[in-house]
């Protein structure tokens, strides 16, 4: 088998003011023609630096100190280039870059210029490497857009990136990378920022194009699930070195290296035994004798018949979109972000709320916190026996309510004020709610830090000196400061690496047990929800479509949307590759196209039906139970 790319003993150093960092330290691997090689590792393992070295777009302080990057152009047999020796601005390198090797980045939001149409940006790559007239360029670009699955490629040519959804943007990015029919495609975490269902579509698209155009793919990712579905060969990296490499089967069947084994254990899987814990690569060390725990005053464990801690009934939120003209704005239409949502959470329980982005999960959580005004419906909070009508609360009562319900945010980078020290961040809720004297507050903050496993010496530092996982722990400590009973976690681990994700999930689980907390855990990743939640609610287009205890939902998903979500989660097991044929159709996320009795459109309004064992499904009224037992 011929190779497209051969990397030999590559070393890359970053020379910065603080000293020299060896980002890549003697890495060798190959990419065979027409195959997919996965480069796996946590963030900071040097995998992205390798991709930049191959493209010769290393940042300024980075230097290739030794080694070779040999690129064998499949179109010119016998010719090869050593990219490590070529000057980044040389003509040969410019021809290879974008023409023969192209790259897809992680962030579809930022990797396209917002000021140019996608047609302009895609055809630019074409014109740079091939002599084409303008009209031909447009034609080729439109064909490419059609190939990557734009529904209306002619119109798409003239759209701007911000008018497109994340999935479509990533498709545009792929079109840009493919337009010159490269010999090698580097995909740098191409689906990390996307929903599972969109991820499945993009992965499928990449595989199809690979078959059609016969190119090799270097897939860079930290998600072993994606790897299992995509790769032929795997290279595992850790701290700039290759830990292990081999074919897909070898690596997954008999992982040799302890790092790889640890990485495998850190991923939530569907086949985990009840009570089985994830094993993060680096466990958070926490002191168990925290004073905070002793004073915590946890809610007594629910005694079966206790009323739910939170009950949401027929909650509805309408947003009005506006159309502006020369004479001011007029309401143009209404968007039902949350449509008649009813659910409850029992004390001490963790309810997982699952759905794709844009389905209204976050809006729902904001309604519960009264960060947004509700259009219709009711929210009842059970404050240790006393019912509170959340939507009727006024100033002081609302202030007290927010004492009891706290929020953990998705993005650990933007949810902490970079100009406040960790101490200020964690003590802020205490100051706002006027809890204790300043000495007591200091004591509490210190206890919170040890509770989430952070060193109290870090208190004077600013957020930028912490890693993503540590920042998320600071966010958790802040949420716990007021000793809340209910925590709303909005995608708390989706921005984190797998190993860090395991840390945070374990921490949340432990805290829940120790402090008697109740969670509303919002996520798009069913495997994560499966690990932490007791009951799961599935949401689509503002409506709940299915709620059930965890076991029932995974064993017997009834609603087509749930089934699709489940099918879209890539499992770290080569024997359970994603079955793309079911996933790629848009049908499953369009309520109007769901088969009867699930169809929801202007004429039919399905209702939640109890099908036994706390399992509810949204179906047409008077649907026969037998009909659902398919």
């Amino acid at each position, binding site marked *: 088998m011929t190779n497209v790319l051969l990397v030999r003993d590559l070393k890359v150093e970053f020379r910065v003011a603080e000293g020299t960092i060896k980002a890549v330290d003697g890495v060798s691997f190959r990419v065979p023609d027409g195959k997919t090689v996965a480069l796996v590792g946590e963030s900071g393992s040097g995998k992205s630096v390798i991709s930049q070295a191959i493209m010769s*777009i290393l940042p300024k302080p980075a230097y290739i100190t030794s080694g070779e990057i040999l690129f064998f152009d499949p179109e010119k047999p016998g010719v090869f280039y050593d990219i490590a020796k070529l000057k980044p601005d040389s003509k040969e390198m*410019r021809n290879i870059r974008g023409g023969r090797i192209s790259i897809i980045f992680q962030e579809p939001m*930022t990797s396209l*210029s917002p000021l140019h149409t996608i047609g302009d940006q895609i055809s630019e*790559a074409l014109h740079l490497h091939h002599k084409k007239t303008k009209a031909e360029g447009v034609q080729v670009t439109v064909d490419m857009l059609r190939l990557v699955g734009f529904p209306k490629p002619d119109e798409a040519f003239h759209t701007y990136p911000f008018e497109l959804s994340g999935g479509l943007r990533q498709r545009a990015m792929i079109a840009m990378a493919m337009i010159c029919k490269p010999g090698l495609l580097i995909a740098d975490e191409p689906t990390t920022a996307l929903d599972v269902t969109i991820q499945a579509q993009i992965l499928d698209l990449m595989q199809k194009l690979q078959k059609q155009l016969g190119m090799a793919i270097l897939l860079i990712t930290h998600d072993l699930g994606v790897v299992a579905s995509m790769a032929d060969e795997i290279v595992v990296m850790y701290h700039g070195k290759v830990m292990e490499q081999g074919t897909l089967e070898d690596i997954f069947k008999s992982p040799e290296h302890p790092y790889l084994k640890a990485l495998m254990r850190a991923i939530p899987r569907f086949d985990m035994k009840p009570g089985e814990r994830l094993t993060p690569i680096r466990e958070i060390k926490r002191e168990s004798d925290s004073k905070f725990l002793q004073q915590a005053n946890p809610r007594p464990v629910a005694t079966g018949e206790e009323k739910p801690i939170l009950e949401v009934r027929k909650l509805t939120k309408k947003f009005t979109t506006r159309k502006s003209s020369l004479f001011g704005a007029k309401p143009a239409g209404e968007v039902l972000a949350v449509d008649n949502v009813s659910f409850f959470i029992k004390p001490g329980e963790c309810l997982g709320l699952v759905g794709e982005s844009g389905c209204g999960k976050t809006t729902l959580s904001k309604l519960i916190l009264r960060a947004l005004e509700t259009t219709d419906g009711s929210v009842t909070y059970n404050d240790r026996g006393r019912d509170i009508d959340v939507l009727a609360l006024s100033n002081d009562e609302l202030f007290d309510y927010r004492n009891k319900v706290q929020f953990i945010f998705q993005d650990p980078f933007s949810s902490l004020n970079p100009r406040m020290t960790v101490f200020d961040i964690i003590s802020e809720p205490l100051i706002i709610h006027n809890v204790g004297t300043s000495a007591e507050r200091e004591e509490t903050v210190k206890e919170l830090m040890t509770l989430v496993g952070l060193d109290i010496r870090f208190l004077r530092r600013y957020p930028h000196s912490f890693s993503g996982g540590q920042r998320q722990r600071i966010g958790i400590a802040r949420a716990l400061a007021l000793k809340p009973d209910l925590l709303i976690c909005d995608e708390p681990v989706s921005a984190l690496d797998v190993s860090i994700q395991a840390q945070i999930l374990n921490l949340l689980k432990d805290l829940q047990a120790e402090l008697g907390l109740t969670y509303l855990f919002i996520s798009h990743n069913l495997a994560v929800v499966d690990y932490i939640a007791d009951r799961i609610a599935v949401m689509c287009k503002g409506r709940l479509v299915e709620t059930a205890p965890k076991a029932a939902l995974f064993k017997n998903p009834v609603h087509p949307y749930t089934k699709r979500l489940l099918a879209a989660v890539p499992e770290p097991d080569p024997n359970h590759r994603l079955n793309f044929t079911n996933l790629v159709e848009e049908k499953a996320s369009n309520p109007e196209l769901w088969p009867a009795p699930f169809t929801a459109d202007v004429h039919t309004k399905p209702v939640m039906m109890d099908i036994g064992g706390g399992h509810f499904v949204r179906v047409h009224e008077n649907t026969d139970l037998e009909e659902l037992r398919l």
Partner: protein
Amino acid sequence: MIPTLLVISILTFVIIQLPPGDYLSNQLEELRSQGESASAMAKIAFYREQYALDKSPIEQYARWMGFWPGPDGFSGLIQGNWGQSFTYDLPVKEVVGDRLGLSFLINFSTILFIYIVAFPIGVYSATRQYSIGDYGFTLIGYLGLATPNFLLAMVLLYYANVYFGVSIGGLMDDKYINQPWSFDKAMSVFDHMIVPVIVIGTSGTASMIRRLRANLLDELQKQYVTTAKAKGVPRLKALIKYPIRMSLNPFIADIGNLLPDVISGSVIVSMVLSLPTVGPLLLEALRNQDQYMAGSLLMFLALLTVVGMFVSDVLLAVLDPRIRLTGGATK
């Protein structure tokens, strides 16, 4: 726009009226102290009648704006009549006329100078951050910001005269004043403009360099620049097409503020260099309580500001599809 201008006109008028007395009563005092002169008194009485200075301020305002008929019928700002300057005893239009063109010339050249000088330097500083050149320009830029304009004006005038024989002050040689335009006159104006343009432009250039550098540095970090590089776009082309285009927005947004500056800016420098621009005229009018002159000039500036804002908004929408297409969508 029109309501904004109306409010501005009311504010302008009220502020001009605020100090006690008016130009005529000041004049009257002076005449009285000198011993009365019948003809002067008659003239003052005529003005008083003509401009309704003896009437209520509301009526004065209405006449000035042209909402209310005066002795000559409707004749106010709306009809294009800027009123009479008491100091010069001439219609405001005639007093301002020539100067308006020259002010525009000087300040417009200054803006061009700022853009032409600041742009390449800003881009150079950003792309070669922390190089010797960057530090050098930064130093010069700060000097430019910190030096008072009028001081620089005098220093430059001296050296320009001593070493290059460029004559001092004014905007043209004395012999061309009140002469019809000719090639020689134009050259003379050009010669005289070099010093004022540099003087007025330095601080603007310096701050523009700093801003462009900061904007561009932000943009250069962005992912789409890497994307462009990864496509194989040559360096300079990628730089111009993506990050520079992105960092243009603040400059276009600035046009609104620039327009009134073009007319009235640089008062002090104009005084020092005795340039025949509008700036000193406005200052003088305000000091003399020459109410129609001041009011009309201020209104003109306000109009320019509003128009400038409008122009920059339109340009922004043309240049930036995000503004064009997402404007009006509220959350």
